[in-house]
């Protein structure tokens, strides 16, 4: 099982963070409280507006490969903190931690990406000057 869910004690962390800059309805699509992590292989990278998006193949409970939809901030916002289209590539083995989709949707709002190489990247950091 490669999906871990940490529902408790993370509500505080969920209050701040990347979604504060979003301008679509994060609240309708993702849970503020329910955080979790998925592990698998990146199969598609879309470093495009409105949100950078990564499709990732994850083994479900029965061992079957299923696709998850991982998304984060806009490319322009990410570029400002040094995250570019090659930061995560097709074929990378990663663990993604973040806010889980509502209604058990297989989607996650990225808070942190941990690559098997040990590299950790986050869609936050020093904001570009106001």
């Amino acid at each position, binding site marked *: 099982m490669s999906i871990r869910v940490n529902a408790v004690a993370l509500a505080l962390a969920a209050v701040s963070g990347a979604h504060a800059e979003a*301008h*679509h*309805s994060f609240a309708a699509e993702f849970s503020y409280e329910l955080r979790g992590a998925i592990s698998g292989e990146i199969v598609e990278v879309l470093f*495009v507006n*409105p949100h950078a998006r990564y*499709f990732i193949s994850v083994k479900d409970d029965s061992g079957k490969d299923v696709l998850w*939809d991982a998304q984060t901030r806009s*490319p322009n916002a990410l570029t400002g903190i040094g995250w570019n289209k090659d930061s995560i590539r097709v074929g990378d083995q990663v663990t993604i931690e973040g806010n889980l989709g509502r209604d058990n949707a297989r*989607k996650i709002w990225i808070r942190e990406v941990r690559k098997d190489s040990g590299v950790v990247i986050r869609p936050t950091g020093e904001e570009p000057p106001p």
Partner: protein
Amino acid sequence: MSRSIVRRRAFGALLAAYAALFLPAALAQQTLVGDWFLTLTERRAVHTGILTIEAADGGLAAFVDGGPTSFKVVDGAIELTFDTRDGGGQLLSYSLQGRANGAELEGVLTPPLGAPPGTWRAERHVVPSPAPPQPVDFTGIWSRTSSGLARVTLDYTPAAQRVVAAYHYLDDPSLRCVSPGLVRVSGWPYPLEIVQNDAQIAILYESFHEVRRIFLDERGYPDNLPHRAMGYSLGHWEGSTLVVETKMLTPGYVDLAGQPLSENARVVERMSLGENGQLLRSELTVYDPENYRRPVTRHRAWRKTLKTTILEYDCDPYPFFRGLAIEGKLEEYWERMRRRP
């Protein structure tokens, strides 16, 4: 003394006693009625809004930026609570307690999410009398510093209420890379560039590659052009404030909860400089009686940022539809789009 004089005097005394008892309260209420310019100060931010207090059902009702509030005044003590949202659409609430102090209202502010208390004050909102044009230079690249308050619940007509009730977040056109229109694009968190001459001001938004031309040459609205997401804008200077009126907008939404905008809406923006020309402020008002029983207001601010570059807005709808397919919602989505108003 005749009986009628005694009666009249008794009635007069009764009237005086009644006035002594009830007039101060009535007067106090009366002095609250009107439009106020509201400033909320919390640790990290200052927000401004328009507070309107009206007589209603023997008491008072208050509206902030065109949206209803929970409002009461007891012995001069004011309590006001209203909703707003964060950037992700989460519903938040501000509470204000205070009272009149001279010509102003002021008190303690309770921000959302357990943030430390702040302060608030309100002064009479005065619409400046027309002043001769004194154009100023808005040229430059501007980055948003404040998204302002974004009221969620507005003073809906029954028609608008039905649209909001039926709205689903997938109806947001920006998810499939379609411009969400003037009211939303002008408040988007990405920078904008202003290019200006005597006849026209162009605003180049990073968001959706939108380009707006605000014509200053005293033309009227054309009658042979289709409506579009950013509408058709005519501007003039009132003193050093640029006043822009926009009509010919396509129907859409003013915000994330599906608050509708009709094709007959009129949007007025009052834009001015502050802080030695480094700050650009806009008060945007939506007049759309088909949907709202009172105008909806938004306050935004941008700071001049010479080092910022306007980037491309490469938007690709593919991942949105791919995501729907993964969720098994694609068929439902086609059907929803087919039935959209």
